[in-house]
């Protein structure tokens, strides 16, 4: 949706954004002026620059987000393809079943259940901290699973549509091997909207990271958000809202760009 409007409107959007949240406009404009220059003020709690504070914590969240979206894609795309090849088969029903289940599962509860299961009962994974990659396994799954159903469904629908097109018929008539028809010809077209969706979902993961990082005590930006809110550390909270919003906007643009770039019909015109 964001892509439908003009891009300069989006820069305005950030400005207006804070006009809605706070009544004291002047204070805001002042803060904003400094924010755009890179100065986000000083944290009430930590007594350091908000910008360096966020800068310190952001990489952890980024790592988490990247691994989460990768997990979601690696899990959902093959499942969606398999479901599309054999509609109404067992794999199709399993895929749809999982997708329905996944959308209803509250993330914080899922996190706790995983902790009980994997850390306590089976002693496989650590429960908190961020020292080794093992610490990231459960958070990745908990953050990523929520994006999986949408990606799976879009892949499945896209593949179903593509597989019935004329050009796939041509590919088969040319005697190309089934794997080539599927992965080179079909997937390449079906995947275009999925890539956009993944970019947008990646943006949502920032919001999701608040809950996940807090439960698993990962010191990322999400955890910082929760800490700052509960401590009424206003400058940090404002800074985080700004940064998160920027991310959303950039990722939505990226999604549109990817969409256009991957489809030669749009790219070359």
């Amino acid at each position, binding site marked *: *949706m*964001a892509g*439908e*409007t003009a891009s300069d*409107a*989006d820069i*305005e*959007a*950030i400005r*207006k*954004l804070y006009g*809605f*949240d706070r009544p004291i406009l002047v204070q805001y404009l002042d803060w904003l002026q400094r924010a755009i220059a890179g100065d986000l003020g000083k944290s009430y709690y930590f007594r350091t620059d908000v910008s360096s504070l966020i800068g310190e914590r952001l990489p952890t969240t980024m790592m988490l987000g990247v691994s989460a979206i990768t997990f979601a894609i690696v899990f959902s795309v093959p499942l969606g393809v398999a479901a599309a090849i054999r*509609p*109404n088969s067992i794999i199709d029903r399993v895929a749809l079943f999982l997708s*329905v*289940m996944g*959308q*209803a*599962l*509250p*993330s*914080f*509860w899922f996190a*706790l*259940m995983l902790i*009980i299961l994997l850390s*306590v009962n089976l002693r496989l994974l650590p429960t908190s901290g961020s020292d080794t990659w093992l610490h990231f396994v459960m958070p990745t799954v908990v953050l990523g699973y929520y994006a999986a159903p949408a990606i799976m469904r879009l892949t499945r629908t896209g593949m*179903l549509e593509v597989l*019935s097109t004329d050009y796939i018929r041509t590919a088969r008539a040319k005697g190309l091997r089934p794997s080539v028809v599927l992965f080179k010809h079909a997937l390449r077209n079906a995947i275009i909207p999925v890539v956009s969706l993944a970019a947008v979902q990646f943006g949502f993961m*920032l*919001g*999701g990271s*608040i*809950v996940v990082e*807090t439960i698993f005590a990962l010191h990322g930006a999400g955890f910082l*958000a*929760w800490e700052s*809110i*509960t401590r*009424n550390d206003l400058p940090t*909270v404002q800074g*985080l*809202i700004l940064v*998160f*919003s920027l991310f*959303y*906007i950039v990722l*939505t643009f990226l999604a549109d760009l990817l969409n256009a770039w991957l489809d030669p019909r749009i790219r070359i015109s």
Partner: protein
Amino acid sequence: MPITDEVKLDDESKLGSLTKKIRGHQGMIIGSVIVFAVIAIALLAPLLAPHDPYEQDLMKRLLPPFWDSRGSWEHIFGTDHLGRDYLSRLIYGARISLLIGIGAALISGLIGTIMGVMAGYFGGRVDMVVTFLITVRLSMPVVLVALAVVAIVGGSLQVVITVLGLLLWDRFAVVMRSSTLQIRSMDYVAAAQAVGCSVSRVLMTEVMPNVVNNLIVITTIEIAHAIILEAALSFLGLGVQPPLPSWGLMVSEGKDMMLFEPWLITIPGVALFLLVLAINLMGDGVRDITAPENRN
């Protein structure tokens, strides 16, 4: 039925698509049953709950549910850390979830519909402003903003409903806007063709059902969305406040003891999961049933 060269058969025979519809119906039936059951439970809470959900009995703290050897039938789902009956809290918790879901959806539905219709109807600058606001809303990290606002204003049931209502209107706005634009374009076509009566007939038979169908689907989505968000907010301590039996809050209160008393988090979690699942199934069912028929 004449054969056609255009027999583009997908790999479902008609039989396959029919069973699919029945399966979809199945999901919808299950979902509807659960939803109505939860509504009934919420409405009849005072009659159904064996105990007062707020009544504490520190002598009876952390009793396990009836299926455990130490459990009893007096407290079917056991008690929490303050000795309050879990089943009763669960039942009253249904009220909270439903209130939040429906309340937030109503508010956001109202806001979104008004904005969308105005944008579609007036066009021009009004449309620009609304689209703008939608963009702004879409760039906001909802969880973060909701948390921040609740932190400032203070958590309570009303605050949560209001905040969520003020944040979840975007999809309503988008859909109502495009539907209104669709109707408007029909107006112009009608004017050009000077066929007054049939336009309203087309409106009623084609456009309105489509709009209503979309509205229902989005409403179910946003209700489920609101319920999950409230649960997450309450879990983080910035939603509904104790001693209210919000399911999210119950999970939060139970998490410190979850290793030895896992039922404290499994029971409310399952309840949340089932309710959201049921709502989603209903919404999916409505979409599946009405969409292909619209195409015919």
